[in-house]
């Protein structure tokens, strides 16, 4: 019968099971995997249609479900009733009884496992975490939903745009590199940047607390929060983390103490219990962090004594290490990313493939000199998407926030960047631009602009244009002298700086200032509407209250006020200082 059907594709007359006066229409029947054209009488019933289909698709009639225009075709209906005409497509699903059961059970289990929260599933997930790529679990199928949910944040973050494979791979490569190369690790630790970060207990605590998994952990184990709040302990921990030799010493002591403990009857059980209660979630929390190098740090912290770490409840030195260094590597990486982008001011000009002008060689010593890091950075710079991912990762956000709240720290971070140490002028500039810069880093639109190579190019063009103008017509724009230097990401700050510096110079040509203001507004407006919110308020509107206040205080030069406010990001006191320090009159 199948041959008859196939052979008679052209000859419709032999195809009909019953003689009928109606015309024959050709209907396409589409399954998810397949597509066939079936000739049937126009006035045939659905049952007859199904007979044909079952012959063609080799399935039983009661397994067939036909859908047309969103309706399920029932046996009693006729094709014309549903409006099925020549040339139209009808969808077919071939039911398999056990498949239906499977479908519901797997969907149930995967939904419960994702809803059950990541922590419980994270333990099995933690182990394969360093080696497993999310798309292929490599474990028993029943564990698969667990692993995916255990990855939870990881997977969704990884899917931010690069696609899970690429991003995860990148990260894992990084991890592998770090793990295999302990020197790199110590290099990172030795970097004064890192050490600086780590010597600030407040910052550390903030960052640790910002990690949602950490928060979960803290809820379940209040001891951990005690630990975090104990500054002495924090300091000790960070000392420890900073000094790898000391860490090793600690480890050895721990080992000895633990082996003693094991010999006590019942002691081993206590250890076991403590391990499963406290350490596992900690480790898995650490491993699940999407910061570069988090895993090797946890490995470093726990590796030498993976079995039974927690000897005494109070003494947690080895334990904090998994998350201590990762948070430092996170800010150092992202801080490096930040400073890396700002430090390119004097070095490489950005190009399309190298949007941030990242010159790997010049990106500060120590941490970034190892080839692994460099290739990573190159990859990042060549792939703006990755940068975007990095920048939009929640950890980055919290890091930015803490930086913004603590401008001193931020300036410290930047000052420590060796690139700046030789150039005090640059330092000064950055210091003054800091509040703006930080604000901008907070602004997601600014971020997306920063990572958008074309936008960066445009900014560069603007800057270059300004510089050309400056050389061509020095009389016109003398104020651009200082403003022209800073790097690309502070290009946004450049127009802000320019109007600020223009009152400081003697030339208070209102036309110039208008131009500056317009540019600034354009930038702000472009950034604002580009972000999709459309709230592109001009600085005037934003600083209305401050302007009024300044006016009331006697600063009647509205232009200068506005520019000062813009430069200081709305800070009245700083604006006043600025105005006073650069009296145009």
């Amino acid at each position, binding site marked *: 019968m199948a041959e008859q059907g196939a052979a008679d594709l052209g000859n419709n007359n032999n195809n009909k099971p019953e003689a009928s006066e109606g015309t024959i229409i050709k209907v396409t029947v589409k*399954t*998810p*995997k397949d597509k066939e054209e079936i000739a049937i009488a126009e006035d045939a019933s659905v049952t007859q249609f199904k007979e044909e289909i079952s012959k063609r698709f080799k399935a039983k009639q009661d397994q067939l*479900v036909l*859908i*047309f*225009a*969103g*309706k*399920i075709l*029932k046996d009693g209906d006729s094709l014309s009733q549903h409006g099925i005409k020549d040339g139209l*497509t009808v*969808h077919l*699903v*071939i*039911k*398999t009884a056990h*498949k*239906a059961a499977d*479908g*519901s059970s797997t*969907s149930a289990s*995967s*939904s419960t496992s*994702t809803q059950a929260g990541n922590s419980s599933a994270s333990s099995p997930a933690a182990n394969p975490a360093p080696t497993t790529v*999310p*798309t*292929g*679990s490599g474990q028993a*199928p029943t564990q*698969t*939903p667990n692993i*995916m*949910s255990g*990855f*939870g944040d990881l*997977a*969704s*973050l*990884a*899917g*931010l*745009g*690069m*696609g*899970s*494979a*690429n991003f995860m791979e990148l990260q894992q490569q990084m991890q592998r590199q770090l793990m295999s190369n302990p020197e790199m690790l110590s290099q990172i630790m030795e970097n004064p940047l890192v050490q600086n970060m780590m010597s600030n207990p407040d910052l550390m605590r903030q960052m640790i607390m910002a990690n949602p998994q950490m928060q979960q952990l803290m809820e379940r184990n209040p001891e951990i929060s005690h630990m975090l709040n104990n500054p002495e302990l924090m300091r000790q921990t960070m000392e420890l983390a900073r000094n790898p030799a000391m860490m090793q010493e600690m480890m050895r002591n721990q080992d000895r103490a633990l082996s003693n403990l094991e010999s006590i009857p019942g002691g081993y059980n206590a250890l076991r219990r403590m391990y499963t209660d406290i350490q596992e979630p900690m480790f898995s929390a650490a491993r699940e962090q999407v910061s570069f190098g988090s895993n090797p740090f946890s490995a470093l912290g726990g590796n030498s004594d993976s079995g039974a770490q927690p000897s005494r409840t109070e003494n947690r030195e080895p334990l904090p290490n998994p998350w201590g260094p990762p948070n430092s590597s996170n800010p150092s990486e992202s801080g490096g990313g930040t400073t890396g982008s700002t430090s390119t001011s004097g070095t490489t000009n950005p190009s399309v493939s190298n949007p941030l002008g990242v010159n790997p060689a010049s990106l500060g010593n120590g941490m970034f000199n190892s080839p692994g890091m460099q290739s990573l950075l190159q990859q990042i710079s060549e792939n703006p*998407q990755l940068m975007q991912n990095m920048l939009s990762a929640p950890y980055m956000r919290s890091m930015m926030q803490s930086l913004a709240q603590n401008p001193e720290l931020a300036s410290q971070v930047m000052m420590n960047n060796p690139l700046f140490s030789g150039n005090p002028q640059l330092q000064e500039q950055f210091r003054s631009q800091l509040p703006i810069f930080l604000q901008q880093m907070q602004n997601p639109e600014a971020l*997306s602009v920063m990572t*958008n190579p*074309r*936008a960066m190019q*445009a900014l560069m063009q603007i800057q270059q244009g300004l510089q050309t103008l400056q050389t061509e017509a020095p009389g016109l724009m003398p104020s651009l002298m200082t403003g022209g230097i800073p790097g690309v990401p502070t290009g946004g700050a450049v127009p802000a700086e320019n109007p600020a510096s223009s009152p400081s110079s003697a030339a208070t040509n209102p036309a110039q200032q208008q131009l500056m203001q317009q540019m600034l507004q354009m930038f702000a407006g*472009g950034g604002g*509407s*580009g*972000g*999709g919110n459309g709230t592109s308020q001009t600085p005037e509107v934003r600083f209305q209250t401050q302007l009024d206040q300044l006016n009331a205080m006697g600063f009647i030069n509205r232009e200068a006020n506005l520019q000062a406010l813009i430069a200081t990001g709305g800070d009245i006191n700083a604006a006043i200082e600025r105005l006073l320090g650069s009296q145009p009159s």
Partner: protein
Amino acid sequence: MAQNNSFPVKLFIYDLSGGMARQLSPVMLGRQLDGIWHTGVVVHGKEFFFGGAGINNCLPCGTILGQPNSIVDLGYTEVNEDLFQEYLDSLAESEYRGDKYNMFEHNCNTFSNDVVQFLTGKKIPSYITDLPSEILSTPFGQAIRPLLDSMAVNPGGNNITGQR
């Protein structure tokens, strides 16, 4: 089969560029694109979409893309959840496996289009399905094609259909 219930079907449309495409496309591409569209089909209380990892689903608005730019109401379907799941399973084994993802030719919008046709017989708005060809018709699009081909969009969601 006594299934007379009707399930509403909606199409969630997201602009992946967050508005930047509308701004920068005339400059970069030479033609106006209002957005880089990603779509998900919402039916039976879940949002389904196709990404680099395969067919995924999550709660509506549950991806990191957040709220959609626009929602198109596509009417109703009689296909119930079980049947739909079977259909998706078949798709996940054949046309819509994870490795079949191609940013230009076989992406989330292709999937949405097929699914919506299955569910309702209608197609998704053409400005979405025309997007890849529009981009490719510009010299810039041609230039970045190799880069985009290697990328995949995966807005998260951990319920991958037919996960091995």
